[in-house]
């Protein structure tokens, strides 16, 4: 399970890890945040009309997660596969709280989640993540930039404010849940080596 803000490079790292695991003969299943068909319509409609409040935003993501847990996460686990999750409940803990949802409430909400065997957080300064996103010419999206909060009308500025709150929450989460931290400002290869060390150590440990 990997976590990090937009532009932290975690998706790149996860797909490289998947390559390595597959090449070494492991069966791998990848699941992404907010990708279930069930809530897609509502999320899309809500986003289009900018009608989502921090609370409905949070609950829609939790619904998506519950759906994926049942259909996409638990069955591969039961089949003995390795599930690689691009973002997990910690994303909700960080983003929803940054939007003003109660910290304890969102933790209670996700108490149905399966605890990951390995949780890795890609820590990156905001400027680095912004540079990466803008270099890819990613247009900062309304909710990802936190524009729904009305902190700033400027997308880049709003992104900066929102993501700095998100980063603060992640720091708290790292301590609270013991996430492994990878320095995401280092080179892709260095990060991947670190990630493979972590995953390798876990997989070599005999499972009960």
């Amino acid at each position: 399970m990997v976590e990090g803000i937009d532009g932290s490079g975690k998706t790149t790292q996860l797909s490289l890890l998947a390559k390595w695991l597959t090449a070494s003969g492991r069966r791998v299943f990848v699941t992404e945040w907010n990708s279930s068909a069930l809530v897609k319509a509502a999320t899309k409609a809500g986003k289009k009309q900018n009608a989502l409040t921090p609370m409905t935003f949070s609950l829609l993501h939790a619904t998506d997660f519950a759906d994926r847990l049942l259909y996409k996460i638990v069955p591969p686990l039961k089949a003995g596969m390795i599930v690689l999750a691009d973002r997990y409940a910690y994303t909700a803990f960080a983003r929803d709280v940054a939007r003003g949802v109660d910290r304890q409430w969102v933790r209670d909400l996700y108490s149905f989640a399966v605890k990951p065997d390995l949780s890795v957080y890609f820590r990156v300064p905001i400027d680095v993540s912004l540079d990466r996103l803008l270099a890819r010419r990613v247009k900062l999206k309304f909710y990802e930039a936190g524009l729904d909060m009305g902190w700033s009308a400027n997308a880049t500025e709003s992104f900066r404010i929102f993501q700095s709150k998100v980063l603060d929450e992640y720091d708290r989460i790292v301590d609270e849940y013991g996430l492994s931290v990878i320095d995401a400002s280092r080179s892709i290869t260095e990060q991947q080596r670190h990630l493979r060390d972590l995953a390798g150590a876990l997989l070599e440990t005999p499972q009960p």
Partner: protein
Amino acid sequence: MNAPDPAERGAHGGVTPGHFFGHGLPYVSINDYPGKIIAIEGTDGVGRTTQIRLLREWLEVRGYGVVETGWTRSPLMAPTIELAKSSNTLNKLTFVLLYACDFADRLEKEIIPALKAGFIVLADRYIYTAIARAGVRGVDSQWIRRLYGFAIAPHLVFYLKIDADALARRVLQEGGMSYWESGMDMKSGDDIYDSFRTYQRSLLKEYAAMSDEFGFRLLEGRKSINAIQEELRRQVGEFLEGEDAAAVVRT
């Protein structure tokens, strides 16, 4: 299932009406909003909607502004919930969470603004419906109560009480049993009548268990529409007189 601890109890079990039950919406301030929430609870087909229509009429004649809110009627979620119900992919958690999202949308967009403007909000079902349905499906009772911590405790909760047999007859007279009202998703059998009775019986048990916890005012659902309405108006009238008198003292 665990009994909820007293600190988490609702309406008259510790939480002041008009305040949040628990955690959830720190970014919304609802202090001293003049509006009131009156919730009418009861299982499907018990006659809630008729009672609300009559009560609204009466309140408006007496000069109160009234806003109605009903379960799964938010513009955001209603289409998704309908779609999910028809496609049969819901599990107990997504079922519960979609309803919670619908409720959150109505709470922030309809209920809170109405309270702020001094309306009486008549809620056709409230969070108790969600808690009862979740309970029947085996969802953890603590979890669901914490989930709805972002809800506002109503000022009055009326519960239209009826037994499963009387309810079955009434529902059959009025057009028949639906898949969801019969709890067919719980797959207790193919016979819709048996399933309806089993499901509604367990629902009624859940409501009964909440009665003390949340301070339900019981109304006998087998009485005539007029008799129920009369009792409803008497109790609502009494409550509003008390509130109006208190408001005069404050000003």
